[in-house]
């Protein structure tokens, strides 16, 4: 990924957030919008300044087409992408199956993705789940049981 692209990811995210927030401010009383509007204008100016600086940089020589760049990045960072997907999956497992089962499922999938062998995965998952269960019980931690078990 070129330095220019890296520089632009965050300002584009900010721009998206600014537009969404601005649309939500419609109909707000003056007291609720005066400070946010000031911040939104400042953000637009700063996004412009940062983007201009990034765009003034020399483009990388012989840059690859976008599609092959995305494929290359996905291949290089497949573990990270898998962990992000697994983390989103954890939320749904957490809501449906509860804290302990979600933890077991996450660990059972995450250890192999991180590069742990099958036997160690089983041992580490069981060990971690037991430790978490005991800790949660001792601390009287109010863990959810999951929608399916209610």
């Amino acid at each position, binding site marked *: *990924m070129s330095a220019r692209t*890296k*520089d*632009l*990811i*965050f*300002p584009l*995210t*900010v721009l998206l*957030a*600014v537009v*969404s*927030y601005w649309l*939500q*401010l419609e109909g*707000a*009383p003056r*007291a*609720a*919008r*005066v*400070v*946010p509007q000031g*911040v*939104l204008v*400042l*953000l637009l100016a*700063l*996004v412009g*300044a*940062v983007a201009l*600086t990034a765009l003034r940089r020399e483009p990388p020589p012989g840059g690859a087409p976008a599609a092959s760049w995305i494929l290359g990045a996905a291949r290089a960072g497949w*573990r*990270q992408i898998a*962990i*992000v997907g697994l*983390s*989103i999956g*954890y*939320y749904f497992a*957490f*809501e449906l199956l509860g*804290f302990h089962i*979600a*933890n077991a499922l*996450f*660990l059972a999938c*995450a*250890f192999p993705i*991180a*590069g*742990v062998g099958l036997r160690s995965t089983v041992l*580490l998952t069981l060990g*971690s789940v037991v430790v*978490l269960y005991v800790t949660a019980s001792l*601390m*009287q*931690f*109010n863990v*959810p049981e999951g929608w399916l078990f209610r």
Partner: protein
Amino acid sequence: MYDLDAVAAGLQNLFQLHVLASLLVGFALGFIVGAIPGFNDANLMAILLPFTLFLDAMTAIVAMSALYFGAQAAGSIPAILINVPGTPGTAASTLEGYPMARRGQAGLALGISFAASTFGAVFGSVAAIVLSPIIGAFALRFGPAEMFMIAVFGLTVVSSLTGDDIWKGLLASAFGVLIAMVGADGMTAFERGTFGILHLYDGVPLIPVLLGLFGFSEVLFLMREQAVASGESVRGKGEIFRGVRECLRHRVTLLRSSIIGTIIGIIPGAGATIGSFVAYGQARQWSREPEKFGTGHPDGLVATDSANNAVAAGAVVPLLTLGLPGSASATVMLAALVLHGVRPGPRFFLNFQTEAYTILFSLFIASALIALVGLPAARSFRAVAFLPTRILVPIVGVLLFTGAFAWRFLGFDILVMVVFGLLGVAMKVGGYPIPAFLLAFILGSLLETCFLQTVRIGGYGLFFGSPITITLWVLTILSLLAPVIMKLGRRRDKARG
């Protein structure tokens, strides 16, 4: 002003076996909880609060105070070892502590951290004992205009954390302010930027944001490494005590940061995060090698950890003298005091003088425990930095999910943590400073509320209407100009050879 009989009675209250035992247990519990990311001291204090009703008032309050101190000190352990702050106040400890751990100097960093924490806490406790009766009266002068200026000053300090590109720093901090303004507006209850999501009505939750930006993003980066400590491992037995000696070499930073921390702690509502970042910014501005900050400079770690713990001690002053809690844990402390019939406020030192001194002296003893417990424990914790990431990453992942959930007991916060983790990745790859975003996020609501209150009370003139605001304006301008002046000075020195 100082009633020596009350001081003696306060000490007598404290030096009873069951009170000292509760102090030790409270400190140990706080230390363990502080070392686990997300399980913050406020949560544990809230869980333990009903159980303290079976104890007498002083035993319960001393235990709570010790727990609060233990958690603050131990919060630096995960901040240094895995870049995940144990408490919000230790977020700044990641800036220098984690790069040191990455270089294989985890033990050294922990030694520095605990020595600085002890100094900061002892300094703050002594200041609290001496100044509480005096400052109670002074702190009453802080109105919304003064608080607004405190927030502005905090944000200008961010400029000294932003590295070379000031625009990136400003963008990150302005975005932090915007995210802080998500949720129902404090004055009109109008929902802003919630997209109709009920869980965002109270705003974006701090702990999931913190865990996402620092922890989850780092987990993704760590997957490329073999272990946290990628440098040459320094495992010598004396490494932690070398850290203590290293900390004592930075006497000026230690003293300056403890003073900054105590002052910021005394200001109601400012908090440990602001204190440690301001101290870090000042350490960098005054340093002879500011370019080394961010790469694992001991001076920065000394500044953040002494200030963080000095804030914890200083924050007890407004809690006792004004009844104003400066943080979530201080709020639970307030609840504990009220539940036991000890109501803090401007007349606290008149009505509960003995109790006040018992609490303040218990803080002093808890400060000493940071070194007594922390330094021996650091050797065991240090091993985490050498664990293979293939084992560490999934376990830290589960801790992050649990910590995010534990803040409000809402599964939704796990998603918030993941989203802010991805934002953290975007910021890191582009070189946008995460601390600037975080500080602005914490200060955002304070800025807005105080701005609107000031304008409503007396118009824009109030921002220049008192000696305190004028002093803060001067400090703000100096803080903005200092990096430029120092840069020019260094350029001139270079030209002279």
